[in-house]
């Protein structure tokens, strides 16, 4: 218990870092996921921008990247992270790598949620002269907003999970804290404190996400 009391400042710093990493990756990964997901949806056969070559490329990319265990992806993507952020380690690199992985995970969720929008509604928009860009922003995204918010809430948990692995390549956060001060120092109380904080964090976000989705769905 004393160990935890002494580590409190570090615990708060770690929590802050986790929040920062998760917020940044939710932002970048979310945008990436939306773009790739929309790309998959729009280029699929019979859709408004039906384009088989692009669909096949995106589909294969998603199918290849998504199943790679994150800790391996982290190592594999390190050269790319270094090229983009200037360093293979640290928070910037980890944000880049998580965002990349999250984009492809999120892409499937976005695609699936967009597929729940009735094609008839798109016909209706086309029948009054709406073009593809307008349909994306005034029909597709608003109509799928509720499920999309739930999708983003779902991916948030995955982001917390991925950020915890960040400790391995010099990223900060609660995962790193639990490893460094709890696991390696044989202080289970410290580990559990990190776990507890993560649970609280995830619950809060889940609650908030459900609330937003309910509002979007008017239920």
């Amino acid at each position, binding site marked *: 218990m004393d160990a935890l009391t002494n580590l409190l400042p570090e615990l708060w710093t770690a929590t802050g870092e986790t929040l920062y990493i998760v917020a940044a990756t939710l932002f970048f990964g979310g945008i990436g996921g939306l773009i790739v997901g929309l790309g998959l949806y729009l280029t699929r056969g019979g859709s408004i921008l039906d384009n088989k070559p692009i669909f096949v490329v995106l589909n294969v990319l998603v199918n290849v990247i998504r199943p790679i265990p994150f800790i391996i992806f982290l190592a594999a993507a390190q050269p790319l992270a270094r090229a983009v952020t200037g360093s293979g380690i640290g928070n910037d690199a980890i944000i880049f790598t998580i965002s990349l992985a999250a984009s492809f995970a999120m892409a499937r969720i976005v695609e699936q949620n967009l597929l729940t929008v009735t094609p008839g509604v798109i016909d209706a928009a086309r029948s009054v002269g709406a073009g593809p860009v307008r349909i994306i922003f005034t029909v597709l995204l608003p*109509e799928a907003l509720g499920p999309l918010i739930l999708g983003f809430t779902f991916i948030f948990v995955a982001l917390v999970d991925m950020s915890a692995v960040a400790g391995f390549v010099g990223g900060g956060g609660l995962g790193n804290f639990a490893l460094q001060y709890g696991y390696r120092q044989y202080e289970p109380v410290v580990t559990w404190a990190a776990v507890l904080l993560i649970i609280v964090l995830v619950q809060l976000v889940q609650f908030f996400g459900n609330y937003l989705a309910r509002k979007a769905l008017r239920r």
Partner: protein
Amino acid sequence: MSVVSLRNVSKSYPSSTKGGASVMAIDSVSLDVEAGDIYGIIGYSGAGKSTLVRLVNALERSTGGEIHINGRDIATLPERELRKIRLGIGMIFQQFNLLGSRTVAGNVAYPLEVAGFPKQDRATRVAELLSFVGLTDKAKSYPDQLSGGQKQRVGIARALATSPSILLADEATSALDPETTHEVLALLKRVNAELGITIIVITHEMDVIQTIATKVAVMDQGKVIERGPVFDVFSNPQHPASARFVSTVVKGVPSAPELEVLRERHTGRIVTLSFRDTAVDQSEVFGEFVRAGVPFQVIYGGVNEIQGRPFGHLTLALHADDELVDAALERVRQLTTVTEVR
């Protein structure tokens, strides 16, 4: 001039199996819809009628022929140009296809936004349209709070927002109960009569055609097999498929199994008389039988009215010697069409 004119229009889909023959959804259809028509297109599911109507506003592209909208061939226009054409063609759907994320007013305003209608005038136009369809009090409701009939009225208000000259109704009443169907059809009639909008109605229900259409085309396997004024097609269908549709709403000529029953149940000669319009006075026809001393019994039939013009078929059992009957039929033939059944 025709508002919508199709010339040998075809639509084929590539085969689902490699190297297989392509599927002809629409097979060389020609059709002219005049301004002010309520043109019904009827057919069983899979007959190609929905595909045909989707070619008119190019939601689907034809693979052959010409499609003239107000004199302009749209079959080869690029998508960007088509968007302007579509502003002049409203469309309503079987499943209504309202935007669930928008209120009723928001749905009706949608085409106005797309058309770049001045923002300050939108609310006025939306109020006008909602009052026309009788949904002023539902402006702030969401589609999932409305009944089917109300949803379709919103659909109609939305389709009319940009003041189109043509309205396409794709099975617009097929998801509604009979009473609501008649409400919606009455509204479509008003759209036609008060706003002068030409309407193309796709349906598989002959009742819908009978209620509102002025002209009808019957489709089967991607082809138009019969067309004409509704009265003509109803009173005297030429094609067996048309006759089947007509028989769903018009009790007229007995079908083969029904005839079997009639033959068993009744003695004497059986004939079917066909009456069209007011050209023939039924009492005159019956008078001939009476004068000839041929007792008769009406055993099947019905008299219907399309657009105020009556027509019908009556099947009679004639109870008299052949000689008397033949003499009577001879004179009746001068008055109307007689089909001898036995």
